[in-house]
């Protein structure tokens, strides 16, 4: 078995360390070693977007990164997006208001993606929102509610 690596990173502001096999994905590291199960794993090969997290601020698929690659980085998961008092952030609030979820499995990935997108594009158009959402799949196909939630969070009428 290949040599394990000690990985140290900051997750949602807390320092985390673990000894991992190189093939352990960041998604598995978050779920198994950090017990942060808000990051969901759907396809595990980069298609569905359920595992999206922020890596040094950028939205990325955590199933396509090995935990060893994230050594020294700052990761934010969906758990880290809530307000300090535990309340919902504006994107999460919009998903609740607009019924932007059905079973909820894909929701963490959508919330993280939309949060990152709106941070970088504060005044999106309808088309831009649809394009931004295209990298996440919802198998309930509740896309209309998700689009409405992203529109609401993005300040569109």
């Amino acid at each position, binding site marked *: 078995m290949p040599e394990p690596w000690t990985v140290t990173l900051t997750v949602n502001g807390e320092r985390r360390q673990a000894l991992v096999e190189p093939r352990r994905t960041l998604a598995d590291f978050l779920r198994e070693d950090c017990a942060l199960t808000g990051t969901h794993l759907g396809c595990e090969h980069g298609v569905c977007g359920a595992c999206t997290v922020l890596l040094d601020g950028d939205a990325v698929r955590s199933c396509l990164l090995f935990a060893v690659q994230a050594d020294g980085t700052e990761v934010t998961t969906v758990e880290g997006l809530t307000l300090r008092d535990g309340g919902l952030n504006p994107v999460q609030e919009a998903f609740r208001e607009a019924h932007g979820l059905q079973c909820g499995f894909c929701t963490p990935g959508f919330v993280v993606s939309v949060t990152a997108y709106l941070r970088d594009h504060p005044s999106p158009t309808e088309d831009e929102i*649809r394009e931004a959402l295209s990298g996440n799949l919802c198998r309930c196909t509740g896309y209309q509610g998700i689009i409405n939630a992203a529109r609401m969070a993005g300040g569109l009428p």
Partner: protein
Amino acid sequence: MKPAPFAYHAPETVSDVVSLLRDLGEDTKVLAGGQSLVPMMALRLARFDHLIDLNRVGELASIEGQDGTLRVGALVRQAQIERDRTVAAEVPLLARATPLIGHFQIRNRGTVGGSLAHADPAAEYPAVALALDAKLELVSAAGTRVVPASEFFVSTFMTAVEADEVLTAIDFPVWAGRCGFAVEEVARRLGDFALTGAACAVELDDGNRIARAAIGMFGMGSTPLRAPEAEAALTGNPVTDADVAEVGRTAAAESEPPGDVHASPAYRRAVGAVVVARALRAAIEEARRA
């Protein structure tokens, strides 16, 4: 945890990368953005004894202009290309192809060198590199060689990169003068690999004749393809005489499109003729306004 076990290496310089490539043997793979390689590993379509991660090799992540070329480091992220004003001004074809790649989360990790070295024939960047006659720099412990894009793409997922070499930089020629550029593609869904697409560049002379035309096609064969007959039909002729629909059909006739569940070869050829025509029309219009 789906990939097969591998030993991980995280060098910080190109010289350490090539030493590792020399010493570790054939079952070694270089990892860049991982947006194609890691899915292949997760599906166990690929397995390696050793993975050499380029992500800490800072010298591969810069964009530099020099003497009529733009040198793009292999590790430059697609998201960086999308935001870079120099790229937009000097190599518009590269900039305009970028938003068509995957999704923004993919482009945050995916790299220019990774896309070229992966050599998916339906990908955008290989066709851009081929259309612009880019030059690719390959480094091994034995030295450096430069391979023109026309010799780089060997077959589907196969390139001129030898087992002990790493792609370090790509030199894109800057087209000056009255030029126009366009990328067009048809995909079933936004972000999917295109069924077919075309990356076209056109330069006009002072007499409104087409001085140069380059047509790069993707999804139209086992590698990205140029369309030399179609390019020759345009070159030297007045731009007003250009029959882009006919040139598009000529280009598509020069291709060998694959058939799969998404489209038959005949359909790809028909769509290919249209996307080449659309890209040429847009490129010509831009050049005429320049």
